[in-house]
């Protein structure tokens, strides 16, 4: 069994079904990329995995290290090693980054009655900030408040570095970053990945293959209209870069029409389609 196993996951927001039976398995030590056009359900998947109450799971299950992930509140998921770098992190006015980060790291490291000792925390924080080239002054600012797009994304990766997840989801971390920043962030992520020595799996959600030049996935999945429509190796990302999503979309529409007609599992080219 995979460390993270998503089976037939169907999710809706209010009356709209967004994920339509998604299946995916990720292990520690693996890097997966999830690509797909806007609105295909990538961010929904990430948020559902973390337990965002905005989304309702209507069918399917997710097993995390053999346990029912969907039954856990978000904080428990996080303490057990699941992490998401958000696409749109929210701000928490009046709460300093330092206080927030120390509370979070303490929770992840199992401090229950008290917080991690200040000295130890600050050494850790300083080291991670240097690696990610983050301005030390960020720690006295309020969580995400007044941060530029780039600062928010880097702050998310800083949290990832501090929390040392076992499965990390990066939701469009590259969007809004200039190429230098993408490189710094990616280098930081790769350092974490290598330091974990097979202890960390990553799911990189992205529109573009740009970030995948730095964080090299072994598996690439493409999502379309709430389903995984194609999976492959790194070459799939290259292909998408050349052909764009239009090619996939055209194939998808052909198959979808046939499936609707015949109600069967079909495969054509790189696209497959499963009816439930």
């Amino acid at each position, binding site marked *: 069994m995979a460390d993270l196993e998503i089976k037939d996951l169907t999710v809706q927001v209010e009356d709209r079904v967004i994920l339509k039976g998604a299946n995916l398995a990720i292990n520690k030590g693996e890097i997966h990329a999830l690509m797909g056009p806007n609105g295909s359900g990538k961010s929904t998947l990430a948020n559902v995995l973390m337990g965002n109450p905005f989304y309702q799971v209507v069918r399917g299950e997710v097993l995390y290290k053999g346990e029912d992930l969907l039954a856990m509140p978000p904080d428990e998921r996080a303490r057990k090693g699941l992490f998401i770098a958000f696409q749109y992190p929210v701000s*928490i006015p009046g709460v300093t980054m330092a206080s927030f980060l120390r*509370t979070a790291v303490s929770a992840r490291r199992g401090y229950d009655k008290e917080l991690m000792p200040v000295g130890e925390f600050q050494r850790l924080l300083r080291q991670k900030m240097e690696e990610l080239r983050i301005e030390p002054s960020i720690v006295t600012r309020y969580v995400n408040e007044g941060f530029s797009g780039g600062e928010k994304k880097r702050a998310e990766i800083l949290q990832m570095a501090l929390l040392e997840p076992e499965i990390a989801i990066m939701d469009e971390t590259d969007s809004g970053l200039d190429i230098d920043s993408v490189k710094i962030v990616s280098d930081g992520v790769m350092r974490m990945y290598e330091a974990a020595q097979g202890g960390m799996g990553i799911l990189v959600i992205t529109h573009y293959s740009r970030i995948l030049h730095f964080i090299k996935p072994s598996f690439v999945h493409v999502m379309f209209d709430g389903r995984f429509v194609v999976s492959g190796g790194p070459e799939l990302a290259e292909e998408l870069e050349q052909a764009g999503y239009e090619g996939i979309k055209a194939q998808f529409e052909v198959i979808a029409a046939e499936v609707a007609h015949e109600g069967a599992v079909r495969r054509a080219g790189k696209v497959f389609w499963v009816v439930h």
Partner: protein
Amino acid sequence: MATTNQLGIDVEKYKYGFFEPENYIYKARKGLNAEVVAMISQMKGEPDWMRAFRLHAYEAFLAKPMPTWGADLSTINFDDIYYYIKPTEKPAESWEELPEEIKRTYDRLGIPEAERKFLAGVGAQYESEVVYHNLKEEWERLGVIFLDTDSALREHPDLVREYFGTVVPPEDNKFAALNSAVWSGGSFVYVPAGVKVDIPLQAYFRINARNVGQFERTLIICEPGSYVHYVEGCTAPVYTTDSLHSAVVEIIVKEGARCRYTTIQNWSTNVYNLVTKRAVAYRDATMEWIDGNLGSKITMKYPSVYMLEPGARAEILSVAFAGAGQHPDPGGKVIHAAPHTQSVIVSKSISKDGGRAGYRGLVKIYPGAKGSRSAVRCDALILDERSRSDTYPTMEIDEEDVSITHEATVSKVSDEQLFYLMSRGIKEDEAMNMIVRGFVEPIVKELPLEYAVELNRLIALEMEGSVG
């Protein structure tokens, strides 16, 4: 709950709700009439003018109607309250002289330790009379006077007489009149011209007997160019019968002087907290009120600043927390009576479990107060569906050439914020605490360290059990 906070300060010693057996030399009877008022004055050995002032105020108290606005005060029974209790015969000179029981109470409040660290002088009010007072020697050399008001009346009668009742006259309102009739204790602070007192003066007191009205009277005089920061913190043990706290604070801030007055209150939830606080600020003077209101059944308190001469400035920051059955109605008043005066009011209220908090304020600008500026900001945070927040801002602007801003927000703890914090492993109740602490942070950061710690701790206590 953590036993130490983020700053590494032991918070276990801040345990409230305990009480000591009553052991008083003298105990007045319940209820009030002119005879009781005269007796209080006589017991204290006061000069004639003060006895007359008290009796006059008592007449005003009888004549004044109860306020018909704000919180519901109809359940106060004036006949069921002790108006004067004298805990020891004379104020103690040092910590060692205090009665064991009182010492124990203060030990639990951490007074001697706090003093060692931060305090420059302590005026601790136990019941109706100040029993312990200490002022650092260098300030005495500078001519700073920091006494309980009763002692000040004995030792500096002319000074007290010159200013007493000039900012808040007995006729101001029913509760100011009551205080004027039966006042006891409180602080008297006099800062001579040009003297800057760089460590806060603190008075830490608590009510510790059933039905004891606390009627302390504080008078602060800042001579030109001086600076002082006065801090009062109150905690009260939990009792089931109703208590009344009705203080009067008068402050005179002369030319170019600056006074900051910080209050952190945590009255037990049966206390009626009806306080009149007012300052007058002269040319280029600055008056700052910082007011944290936790606990109490009802709080009606509107710290005011009368800016009487050009260049005067006022700042009023307040936090109110309303839990079940509580109705804090705090606010502030700024009176611009001269050109180029400036004021800022920031009010933050939190309500939960059906509590009701709000803001009631007045910005008044008199004709001719040209070039004056006022900014008011009220933020309310509502933690559940049963709670509410009311905002009553009043603006009376009789001058064209002014700049006035008013901003009000009402928010709920957002699911997105909770989810974000929880996604980092932080439990729901702690996440909620962090959001609330963040909400009041603009005020907390203005407090001396110890009080910031305590306010955060008190808020955490109030928040306990708010996540079901």
